[in-house]
């Protein structure tokens, strides 16, 4: 915890959520905009998978990103809990993180693909597409 504090410039800069180093984290710049939904289209064609994924051509993944700073009145879709979370963060900025910018509504997507034995699989992946984002 002490090491983590060293890297922080001042109180109140703790991010909304823990940002894990991930595959999709190629946008390294600091996000200062409010929490909202962003486009992320993963093209199966770009991945050279069009031979075994029959449909769709790509996956509308979307993701939620942005700041959930106090006051949350300007943030659409901020839950009641997010307001409490923001207040507690103000009181204990080191111990309690800000509300998370996260999906508030998710929908399913289906993928149709071949397996090794030329069987065809149509699989519905529930809660995969972020339809809307909000502070939680």
């Amino acid at each position: 915890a002490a090491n983590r504090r060293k890297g922080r410039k001042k109180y109140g800069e703790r991010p909304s959520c823990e940002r894990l180093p991930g595959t999709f984290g190629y946008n390294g710049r600091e996000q200062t905009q409010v929490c909202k939904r962003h486009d992320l289209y993963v093209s199966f064609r770009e991945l050279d998978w069009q031979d075994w994924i029959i449909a769709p051509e790509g996956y509308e993944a979307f993701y939620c990103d942005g700041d959930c700073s106090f006051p949350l009145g300007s943030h659409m879709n901020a839950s009641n809990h997010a307001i409490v979370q923001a207040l507690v963060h103000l009181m204990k900025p080191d111990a309690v993180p800000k509300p998370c910018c996260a999906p508030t509504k998710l929908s399913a997507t289906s993928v149709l693909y071949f397996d090794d034995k030329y069987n065809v699989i149509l699989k519905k992946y529930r809660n995969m597409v972020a339809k809307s984002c909000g502070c939680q």
Partner: protein
Amino acid sequence: NGSLMNQHHSNFIHRRLNSRERREMQKEILSILGLSRRPRPLLSFKRSASAPVFMLDLYRTMASEETGRVRGASLPFHMLPSAHHRPLEESFLSQADTIMSFVNGVEQTEDTFHHKTQWKEFKFDLTRIPRGEMVTAAEFRIYKTSNESFPGNLTLHVTVYQVLQEFHDREPHLLLLDSQEMWPMEEGWLEFDITATSNDWLMNPHYNLGLRLFVETEGGGSVDPGSAGLVGRRGPRTKRPFMVTFFRASQAPVRTIR
């Protein structure tokens, strides 16, 4: 829709991924799909086979439901669209988490010169079912072409059995699964309910001895399924028989450890 695709691609990753990032991304997406690795490269002509075409139609119906559009009557119902013959997929599609088609692995045809009864036998490998899925419906689909060599008003009975036990010296034990009537001039897909059998094969894979199909006249005379117009695995690719199974995720979904 070209303009929509262009819009998508304009939003696609703002820079080219290097090969390591690309591999990592592929690995992550395969993980989401529940696959340990990508399937082997596929021959392009396989896409035009009967099962992928059927599944693509189901996909389009499912995708239109997901995007909130009104369901279209796009399912490939070719034969006898009466209420009695409404296929299973219509009622199970909306509930299904996974739908799988299985290609026919083996098709044996009885030697017509040595036996009075003629039949076709089909086998499907169900060992690759995803974990944590329950079968809600399954059907065997076989295409019938029109045949002018029979009288047009001749009623033929097509019956599908599950092979329960095989013997070297006598006929196997069979379990009646489903039957349908057909007429020589008709053309289209015949669908047979094999839900109970699929569950049986999933629970006891070593009991998967295949399906046996018979065609008989009303008088009980045996008819060669091929000459009656039923297309087998050597027929046109777009009309070969296959099996389709609908699954629903069990209450406690199995999650891949990462």
